[in-house]
């Protein structure tokens, strides 16, 4: 066990898997010698050789496509898209190819591919270093979408993603790479070392995909969140005076419907939180699922607290970012019914 940041935990997951399985390799823009702009692949080239961890041309389509070809060959590539905002050139390859090759070839070919990408705002990244495009993946049959919220989960889920025989979109909440940021800009940022989930085993372990985690148990209201927003929701719960149950989804598709329904059946109230733009965000799907599965338990309309339907504004990002007060407001609204 060692205290790790999320970056270190992700690095450790890659290192662990590259050691266990020669079929695992990783590449992407600046991931080789430099170790990635966020340092997630640091030292991997030096340790495992340039053929197993290398720089790629700035062509996300090519990165995805080459990885698909490798996966079809029988390797287990892990690619990095430098920012989720830059995944669009790769989108066709992920949606039309990776996601459908098993189905269209009736298992003749399969694509055990992991696509890592940092996502989310709160780092003054402006419109093209802040986006949360998870709903663009959850809509696609054949893809799994995973978002961890802690170092411990990040490592265990990344290992599970690499071992998964289907393509997995692995989105990393960059705002909490180095500490469990809770959305309160006025407070000093905590380092991960002060957080219990930074206690990460050195070696191999996995956290199953498709299983949510109850980040905080409670009776009054269910909050569904993932990634950075889990920490923001916890902070909101703390100040709300309400006994909120916070579900950290961890996997968005396939989602842990049992955990969700169990909680909402108990509380009768539900708040959904994400950073992505609201309209057709993943919160819409969660809202639809909750009302389909728990309609007769619901005491009040489900509330969505989300990024607004605008591009991510640079200087006004703290107005854009879903902060604890916004979540508390939604919790109160849902309590009032």
């Amino acid at each position, binding site marked *: 066990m060692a205290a790790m940041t999320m970056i270190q935990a992700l690095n450790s997951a890659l290192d662990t898997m590259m050691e266990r399985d020669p079929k695992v390799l990783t590449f992407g823009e600046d991931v080789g010698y430099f170790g990635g702009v966020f340092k997630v692949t640091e030292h991997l080239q030096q340790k495992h050789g340039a053929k197993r961890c290398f720089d790629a*041309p700035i062509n996300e389509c*090519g990165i995805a496509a080459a990885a698909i070809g490798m996966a079809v060959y029988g390797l287990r590539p892990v690619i990095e898209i430098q920012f989720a905002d830059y995944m669009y050139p790769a989108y066709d*390859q992920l949606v039309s190819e990776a996601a459908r090759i098993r189905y269209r070839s009736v298992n003749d070919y399969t694509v055990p591919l992991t696509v890592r990408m940092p996502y989310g705002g709160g780092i003054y990244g402006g419109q093209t270093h802040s986006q949360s495009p998870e709903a663009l993946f959850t809509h696609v049959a054949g893809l799994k979408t995973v978002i961890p919220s802690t170092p411990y989960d990040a490592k265990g889920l990344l290992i599970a993603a690499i071992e998964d025989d289907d393509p997995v979109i692995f989105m990393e909440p960059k705002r909490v790479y180095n500490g469990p940021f809770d959305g309160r800009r006025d407070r000093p940022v905590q380092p991960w070392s002060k957080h219990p989930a930074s206690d990460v085993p050195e070696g191999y372990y996995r956290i199953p995909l498709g299983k949510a985690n109850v980040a905080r148990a409670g009776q009054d209201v269910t909050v569904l969140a993932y990634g950075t927003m889990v920490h923001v929701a916890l902070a909101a719960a703390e100040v709300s005076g309400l006994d909120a149950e916070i579900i950290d989804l961890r996997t968005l598709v396939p989602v842990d419907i049992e955990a969700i329904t169990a909680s909402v059946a108990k509380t009768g109230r539900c708040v959904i939180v994400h950073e992505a733009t609201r309209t057709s965000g993943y919160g819409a799907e969660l809202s639809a699922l909750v009302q389909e599965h728990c309609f007769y338990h619901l005491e009040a309309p489900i509330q969505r607290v989300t990024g607004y339907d605008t591009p991510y504004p640079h200087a006004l990002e703290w107005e854009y970012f879903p902060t604890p007060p916004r979540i508390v407001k939604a919790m109160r609204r849902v309590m009032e019914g």
Partner: protein
Amino acid sequence: MSPRKPNALDLHIPAPRARPGDKPDFSGWTFPEPGDTPRPDVGAAAVELREYAYGLIRVLDMEGNALGPWSPHIEPETLRRGLKYMLLTRAFDDRMYRAQRQGKTSFYMQSFGEEAVSVAAALALNPDDMCFPSYRQQGILIARDYPLLTMMNQIYSNARDPMRGRQLPVMYSSKKDGFFTISGNLATQVPQAVGWAMASAYSGDLRIASTWLGEGSTAEGDFHAAMTFAAVYKAPVIVNIVNNQWAISSFQGIAGGENTTFAARGVGYGVPPLRVDGNDFLAVYAVTKWAAERARSNLGPTLIEHFTYRGGPHSTSDDPSRYRPADEARAWPLGDPIERLKRHLISLGEWSEDRHREAQDAALETVRTTGREAEKVGVLGAEGAHARESMFEDVYKEMPWHLRQQREEEGV
């Protein structure tokens, strides 16, 4: 818009020389004579190979003689196999095209006139080399002895369709035969082939990859991704551009053919570019062998432009008489690949008109018999060909809860 200014800019829209009603016009084109193009060493530096992008490698003359340094000196037995597979491909295409017209399937695409491009390549590659084709290289599958019956079963989406009715008729897949599952999205397979080749090199394997796309599809960004990655990592891959002059209704000028050749794209990346008469079985065979040897020697990728003509409609949904002269195919200056290989074999004393007629009849008969067999299994729309629940399978390795729930909604 305001009236035209002097020296004003003007927009150029490319147009083909001949439209319906016009006489086909290939007069602007000149080709090197068969045998005239030198054959560089397989290890030649890419910079020495640039000029090959602007010529045309030809071996067979129109009388059937094999000329010059590119002549591959293949066993007559191999040539006869090549001829047989081309005949089979043509007969197969013909029957399946008509089957679509008869409503037995939804859609079909022929490779009429382009048979040498696939069949010669298939024979020149090793059997375990991996192919990433477009939808017009059925000749590869046929030349690798994939069962015609299975192909037909897929075309009819019947109960024995190996794709379980999920894919369009012509989108085959056979890992066993090194034939990648065909995509409907143009050019996506090309950078995948590069990735596969990189994986083969990464693994210290001996197998190379080869991929095909139409000249129209070279415009896609995926082609650029493929060329960039292939060049950067010296991937053991052959990228084949099948320039059959048309992309549905758009002539090759719309893909950039007015300004340079498609082989020249390779020059842009420092990738050796070979331009070959795609209707010349021997030339296609020879350049494929050259490129394969280069790739297998860790010397990296080759780009081959196969200069040919799409003899038939784009697909059964198309009517080419609406956009090109009806007799343009017949006017194609580089002849028919089957006819030309036949003449060569005859000139070698290894074939005859009679044997050819027999071979043709045999191909037709094989296709006819197999067709009947496939129809007995069923054609598109036959009740119960596929269990409804099969629709929900193989989306993922294991079916997640939401697909199970949706399957239940279907009542299955």
